[in-house]
């Protein structure tokens, strides 16, 4: 639309600009990328809300998985990837179990996290988790409280994982190194210092 009027002060123009969603300002390939990575079909979503209703995070936060799927359909890449709620999914897959259109919303979220990470948009605690995995093979490493509990239950102090077989940790590190995940995490964390 031809713009006839404007503010002489450029900062005011930006601040008072309308917040309409306009298709031409959205990302053309966001939906396509999300579908390629997630291997599911968010474009078939009819926004029934079964996913949000199933979500254990939703009643405890402002995280609405339905809204993320909607953003995928409309190509609202920035809105989706910069929203901190993106990281509140616990990947329990309840939504995927129940989606009536047989979409895997969890995988849509995973795809978006993937794309966000490429743009270095990721919460610090997730990067810390990357470092823990690199170091121990676990996002949440075993600790003394856990060990004591396990012994009380008649289990070995260390589980049948890298905790017991640290020889396998270099293999895990190799996988993470292949994707450059650890280096990227270190790099981003260092930038934020």
């Amino acid at each position, binding site marked *: *639309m*031809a713009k006839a009027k404007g503010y002489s002060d450029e900062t005011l123009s930006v601040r008072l600009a*309308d*917040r*309409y*969603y*306009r*298709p*031409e300002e959205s990302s053309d390939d966001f939906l396509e990328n999300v579908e390629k990575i997630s291997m599911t*079909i968010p*474009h*078939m979503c*009819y*926004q029934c809300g079964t996913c949000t209703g199933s979500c254990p995070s939703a009643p405890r936060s402002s995280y609405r998985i*339905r*809204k993320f799927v*909607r*953003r995928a*359909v*409309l190509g*609202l890449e920035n809105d989706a990837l910069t929203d901190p709620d993106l990281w509140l999914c616990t990947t329990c897959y309840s939504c995927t179990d129940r989606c009536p259109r047989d979409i895997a919303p969890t995988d849509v979220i995973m795809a978006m996290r993937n794309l966000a990470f490429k743009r270095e948009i990721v919460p610090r605690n997730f990067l810390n988790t990357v470092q823990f995995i690199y170091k121990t093979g676990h996002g949440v490493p075993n600790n003394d409280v856990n060990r004591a509990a396990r012994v009380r239950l008649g289990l070995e102090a260390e589980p049948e994982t890298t905790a017991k077989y640290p020889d396998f940790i270099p293999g895990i590190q190799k996988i993470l190194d292949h994707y450059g995940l650890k280096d990227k995490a270190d790099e981003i964390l260092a930038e934020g210092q």
Partner: protein
Amino acid sequence: MVDEAKSQKPRVGVYICHCGTNIAGSIDIKELEEFSKGIPNVVRVDEYQYMCSTPGQKKIEEDIKEYNLTGVVVAACSPRLHEPTFRTASKEGGLNPFRFEMANIREQNSWVHMHDRQGATDKAKDALKMAVAKASLLEDLYPKSVPVEHTAMVVGAGVGGIQAALDLASSGIKTYLIEKSPTIGGRMSQLDKTFPTLDCSQCILTPKMVDIDRHPNIELMTYTEVEKVEGYIGNFDITLRKKARGVLTPAEAEARGIVGGGCNGCGDCEGVCPVIKPNPFEMGMAPRKAIYIYHAQVVPLIYTVDFDSCVKCNLCVDICGDKKAIDLEMQDEFVTVKVGTAVLAVGYELFPVEKKTEWGYKRYDNVINALEFERLICASGPTGGKVIRPSDGETPKRVGFVLCAGSRDNTGIGKPYCSRFCCMYSLKHAHQIHEKIPGAQPYIFYMDIRSFGKMYEEFYYRIQDEGAKFIRGRVAKIEEDPITKNLHVITEDTLLGQPVDIELDMVVLASAVQPTAETTHVRNLFGISCSGDGWLLEGHPKLNPCGTTTAGVFLAGVCQGPKDIPDTVAQAEGAAAAASIPIHVGEVELEPYFAMCIEEKCAGCGMCIDQCPYSALALVEKDGREVMQVTEAKCKGCGTCGGFCPGGAIWMQHFSTPQIVAQIDAFLLGGEQ
């Protein structure tokens, strides 16, 4: 038995129905039973869980004999539900069925006074003693049978009327099919494809149109309107106006002695005619001449002269030559036909969506309505099936479909109802855009997608999978870019909670539908009602959807309410079946509720005659003076004349003055007379 009953004091049996807990839940049945025993003339009182069940009916049948009853009262539901049941039971017991009276203690009592047990019980007592008072005075009545004409009429020759006519005719009934336009086919012939199968609309309709033309039992009368309707079920006299067409069919030509002449549809006349007018079949987007056919597949293939625009230059007459098919001096003709029953299938038109000014229809070039889109995308349409923007003839790439354009609107400007087929045809339009324009992006603006029919939801799935964008939000406004003529559609994406502004090349409004301008006229001619929204009123919304409150008149298609093609065809077949029943039976029984003239009281003033809404009354000469006479078959027993007659000379059967006064007395005086 009955004769005996007449001569004796009234003996009334009272039966109280629990209707499960429907009645017993809010009315004290025991108290009502005890009370009933004290009502004058009551000789027997009984109660039962469900009086309408076989054991309940048996009670009545046996008691009539055992207690020598002269009247039966059942206190239960509405007489609309079970009056026929209990009349039959009374008849089985040997009593005249019209000696049965119903007291409605359910719909008018227990259901509305659910939380006032004592109040409801007291009200039921009043209803019962009034019913007993009337039952004590009821008389034997005998329904009259009238013969039924072995012909039917279908008004309107869209797909509904076509189907109804074919069914009636194929069941062996001579059927008149009346159509106001020069061709049959109606709205369906204007459509390109049909959802969800994507059949070509014309391709599936034309075989039926041809069948109409060929059927030996169908007399097709196009360019004809109903002028006057007289009579009643079995014996309607319907006057038709055959509008001056200006062109003779081969048969009409032969009747005038022109052998081998008449219109053969060659179209030479159209070629020479100098007058150009918009073609309404193409929604005004293509020209026609003053002598015209709507399109190539018209049935019958006969040209029509538009006398409003004809300049009578006679060029068409000259070129028609020896066929002598054109008569520019032709006048309207009137014919009267007799039919037993009639089916109305008078269709719909689009709501004039320009009334909703925020969407800019008729103001913005590139905002069109859905029927215009149908013609634009149709291969036989004005653009040969090429969708173009009206503003510049360019192919639109981004096309918006605005649903509920005037439907579900309580402002008084639009329509409060759902137009029912717009969701589905808009999905189809989105598909067609995808199919015909490479790289096109359809946007569907909706509040709900109502894909209720067989394979409809699957069609919705398919269109979404093809890539149509669905924006849930009713379009608030459309703005036109004055330079590019592009349109900005502004609404909220209610799923996102964000206002959206989508720039589009073209917008198609799925306009609401409304009854045609002629519907009220036709409705008044046939004496049938309409609902608050203007659609013709069915006999019962669930149990009599094809009938009307006027015996012998039936409804098919959208004129009764918005419906898609499958529903229209189904209703048409239902209406045809219902309309054929009285014809095949050969006679109909009329309820004996007609008025009767008490001739010794009648002064012959004739004032009642104008009061009668059914033209059932007339003055006749009898014994040297004028008295009123009732045509019993026409009388509906409405009581207008009976209430009005200054001399009290009109006796309403089954609702006589003594009966009504007895009811009032029973209520006010507790039954003492």
